[in-house]
């Protein structure tokens, strides 16, 4: 099971990097969203996938799933959700003011 998840995360990382390397701004944002999904899937897998009851210790609990990766993912999901929405707004403003969504045309050294 871990192998499948790892391969899936790898594919997601690959797509994410491919999209980030594009010129169009929206594609780059989709790339970052995919990147965060890949990272989250990766955390889940790295904590070992186990079947078991919830991690509340009661008598007779033999196996329980590891709560820490889940807590980490939850935190990370919230953060990447916030950042993605901010990035979308920022991209919208940048496209409006600069008149282009092509990263090649967003280069420049003039600062005033």
């Amino acid at each position, binding site marked *: 099971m871990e192998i499948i998840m790892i391969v899936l995360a790898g594919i997601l990382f690959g797509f994410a990097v491919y999209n980030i390397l594009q010129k169009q701004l929206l594609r780059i944002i989709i790339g*970052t969203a995919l990147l965060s999904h890949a*990272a989250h899937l990766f955390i889940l897998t790295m*904590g*070992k996938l186990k079947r078991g009851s919830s991690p509340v210790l009661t008598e007779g609990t033999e196996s329980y799933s590891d709560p820490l990766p889940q807590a980490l993912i939850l935190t990370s999901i919230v*953060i990447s959700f916030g950042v993605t929405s*901010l990035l979308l707004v*920022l991209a919208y403003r940048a496209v409006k003011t600069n008149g282009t969504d092509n990263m090649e045309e*967003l280069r420049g050294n003039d*600062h*005033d």
Partner: protein
Amino acid sequence: MTNFAILPILIPFIAGILLAFTHNRILLTRRLAMLFAIVHLMTMGFLLYKVLVDGSIVLEAGDWSAPYGIILVLDPLSTLLVLTSSIILLAVVWYAPASVSEEQEGFYFYTFVFLLVTGVSGAFITGDLFNLFVFFEVLLMASYALITHGGKKVQLRESIKYVLINLFSSMLFVTAVSYIYAVLGTVNMAQLAERAAASDQPGIITTVAILLFFVFATKGAAFPLYYWMPHSYIVPNPVVSALFGALLTKVGVYSLIRTFTLIFHQQPEIMDQLFIWVGNLTMLFGVIGALASRNIKLIVAYNIIPAIGFMLVGIGIFNHDGLSGSIYYLLQDMIVKAALFLLAGTIAAVAGTSDINKMGGMIRSHPVLGWMFFIAGLVLAGVPPFSGFIGKLLLVRGAFEKGETTTVIIMLLTSLLILLSIVRAFIRIFWGEGEAIKQQTRHSARSLLPAGLLMLFTVFLGIGAEAILPTVQQISDYLLNPQEYIDLVLKGGR
């Protein structure tokens, strides 16, 4: 008593929230911001005193004992850095009315400044690797808001790149943390240190460490990952540049110092050489960038990079003098960079341009500004008796002790080139004929005081080194002996 450890996060956080409510009454907001900045500074001073006298403070949040809950650690290193950032906060809040327009101030400017400091303080005092990521995000979120604050065309253009590179490195950070969790089964730094030392797979740990090194090197703007930094740091308001230049990259360096002295010192022969060579190249390329620039803000921004190089070399040297030098340099560089950005902002505002070729003869109309810029340049280059010299002296001594002669040569050469870049800017701006700028804007007098406060601290760090050096050397010994930190966190005090 242990609850004091939450204060560095709590005070700026509450201040940020309160200031959001008063945002349309600008005078009140300014005064409240000053008040909170002063309270923060005084509290941090008190905490440092407490930590130095009574020993480090560890807070286990929610009373979940050490390896399981989130812990906050006020040890001498983190407390000293939190105090330094509160000095910068005060100067920035003081300077802001002179430079930020009232409309911008009303648009939650101070809220974002305080939230940025919340994140920075949190990153300094946390004792948990994942929590470090969370605080990185807190400070980055505030910085995203600040870098676009004002919404100029060039700001929006550069901020996209800034956000993207930081987002990418954050995701890499999460990935690295999950690798570490898979290998060592914990994210608590003290327990990581313990388990890494006992681990029989140093190879894997070093691999993960290098991944984490690239994350922090991106945040800290080290070679070859600094390309995003100079151009994005100069587009926002000078106040924001000062805050960024002083705090953000230094959080990356602090994280490197903390994790690589504590956890990842398994294969010193690889890690030390990596740090030394990345440091060497960072120094050289950064200073070349500074020499090639004609924009005063860009010159200052590029001068952040060689300073990062010095600190990295200090970590790589990894002996008593090297680490002391790194920490001393870190402290003084935070302050002098903030001062330089504020001065450069004032110069650009007074001259009406930031191109040094178009300025000239400003020493007649603005002598105090000129000499303060000159002194700040000397501090940066490490001319004795100023504070940059002490840091560099320690680094050079450490490098000789370790036998890294090439590094010594590069360090001294870089210092010389830094001096050249600053003095050339000084000569272009302040000497020569040029039309004497007559416009006595509200900028000049009001904005010099905060920069003067910072200059006072740097001069004190140089001339009063006797008072601070013992503490820094104590911290260096403490970093060289990770067991002390492990005992502090896991066994509840010494």
